[in-house]
């Protein structure tokens, strides 16, 4: 009886596991298999079971540039999101309760709007004849429009906009775990507000900043819609390259290989980063 009781949670999680298996493991496995096939213009997709696609990607400077750009965009997006999100979370944390819910709604706002709509909005703002350039030229501050569409910078701006909420929530959660009396203790010992933030609050919130960075980085590295709309064909990132291989070149095996490499690279970064963070903070926060 006791044994059967112990097994019940596993039975109950079966439907969820089946869904997980059907929707994630199966497609992933099939993509993985596909990456070992070969594509020819006249022959189509054939089984080859060799590493030709991987060797193609890893030895071609064209793909190096795309991978480099993708991770550079993800890294800069993460850094900016941390710089904006951390103080934002602290302000939110110090806010009176009734203002807080209002501001929280404003922060989470971008997540409630479809990514395509939001990105097209940025396109209207950032274009050569877009709102920002238009205003700056009418004010006579610039002669020629600043190029923002189809640049990595434009992609970073739009990605930061949508990913900052993830950072704010992660840091906010970390702030709630700290003893508010530590700030008062620091004040009683003579620390100014600024010193308290940098010496007492920020170090204690660091695990939150780091976990927020992890979320933002992995989301930014695999973002598709934003780079597709704001970068187009000129500023390609890994996910848009995969898309092109599948739908334009019709080289599915190569697209699959690129997708697998992105997955492996992001996972490797996440795992090693996590290990670093754990080692750094095990002694302090446990």
């Amino acid at each position, binding site marked *: 009886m006791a044994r059967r009781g112990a097994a019940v949670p596993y039975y109950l999680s079966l439907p969820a596991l089946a869904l997980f298996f059907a929707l994630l493991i199966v497609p992933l496995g099939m993509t993985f298999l596909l990456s070992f096939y070969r594509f020819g213009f006249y022959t189509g997709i054939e089984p080859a079971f060799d590493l030709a696609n991987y060797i193609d990607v890893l030895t071609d400077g064209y793909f190096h540039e795309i991978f480099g750009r993708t991770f550079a965009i993800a890294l800069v997006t993460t850094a900016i999101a941390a710089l904006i999100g951390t103080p934002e979370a602290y302000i939110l944390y110090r806010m009176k309760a009734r203002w807080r819910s209002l501001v929280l709604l404003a922060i989470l706002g971008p997540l409630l709007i479809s990514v395509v709509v939001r990105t097209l909005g940025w396109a209207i703002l950032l274009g050569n004849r877009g709102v920002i350039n238009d205003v700056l030229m009418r004010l006579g501050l610039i002669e020629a429009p600043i190029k923002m569409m189809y640049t990595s910078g434009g992609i970073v701006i739009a990605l930061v906009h949508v990913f900052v909420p993830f950072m704010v929530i992660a840091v906010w959660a970390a702030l709630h775990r700290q*003893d508010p*009396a*530590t700030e*008062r*203790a620091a004040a009683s*010992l*003579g620390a100014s507000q600024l010193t308290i933030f940098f010496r007492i609050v920020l*170090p*204690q919130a660091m695990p939150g900043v780091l976990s927020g960075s992890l979320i933002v980085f992995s989301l930014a590295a695999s973002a598709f819609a934003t780079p597709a709309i704001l970068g187009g064909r000129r500023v390609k990132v890994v996910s848009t390259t995969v898309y092109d291989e599948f739908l334009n070149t019709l080289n599915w095996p190569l697209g699959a290989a690129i997708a697998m490499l992105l997955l492996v690279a992001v996972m490797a970064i996440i795992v090693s980063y996590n290990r670093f963070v754990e080692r750094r903070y095990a002694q*302090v926060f446990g």
Partner: protein
Amino acid sequence: MAFLELQRLSKRFGDVVAVDGLDLAVEQGEFVSLLGPSGCGKTTTLQMIAGFEDPTGGEIRIAGRDMANVRANRRGIGIVFQSYALFPHMTVEQNVGFGLEMRKVPAGERAGRVAEALELVRLGGLAARYPRALSGGQQQRVALARALVIKPDLLLLDEPLSNLDAKLREEMQIELRNIQQSTGVTTVLVTHDQTEAMALSDRIAVMHRGHIVQISTPFEAYEFPKSDFVSTFLGKTNLVEAAVEGRDGDMLCLRAGDIALKAPAGEGAEGDRVLLSIRPEKIRFADPAKAVIRGRVKTGVFLGNQWLFQIDSPLGELLVVHQNAGRAEAKAGDEVGLAWEGDQVRVLSGDDHG
């Protein structure tokens, strides 16, 4: 002039009056406790002295200086928090040294003073540890060292011992008292624990509903409580309502029901109804013929070093506490005589009902 002076100090939160026109004067080097139940305003008072809350009214003066426009980080007060509030990301040494660092004390001198402070609280060997790796008692000592190392003019202790277990708490009480006396720092302790307040303080300020209802030495507060609130809050007591019948020399003759009682004359004129307090340890068992009253033992609880009896008597249920002398004096159901000295009875003014 007193070192710390609170004059007509008030604090309201919306409609709630937390502190209501409080007056207190603490002398240099004195150890004063603010004692009261939760919600009596003692913590709010401490927060205002520390500068974390702004008073709604009244003045705070430290060494004659008005604190109204002095921010918390400029008051130079050492504070030990209930949660200790150690900085978890700093070692013990960095925690204790933080206040000196803020005062721009050079690194060499800083290390010396930190070591000295850790020595004072007997934590010399643990300087490199993080707070997480310390026991509650050790964290408490670090918090104390951190507050003392800046050589504060005033030390505030916010329920510093409430998170320790009973045995450790007693040890820390003695140690805290020794450290306070050796450093001579003026100290204000906030606590709801009457034993802690009695063990540590020169004077106890008993607080109730935002006021100080009595301020006196621990002995006086316990032996001569001014009101039933002080009497019941400081230790256990038996309260008996009685009517004043007259005087007999310096003793008051009273009557409760059909029992005649005596108490030292103080307040209370003939015909007044007054409240009497008789401490449970002052009541002894006596030969029923010579006893003041007789009663029946309802329960007898053995607590190791003492016995606690509940006794049904004509004065209502009385609590009696006796030191354990190695034998059971009475058991449930026994008929006993109860006696006490008339001069051990206290007449409470009773103007602080509530």
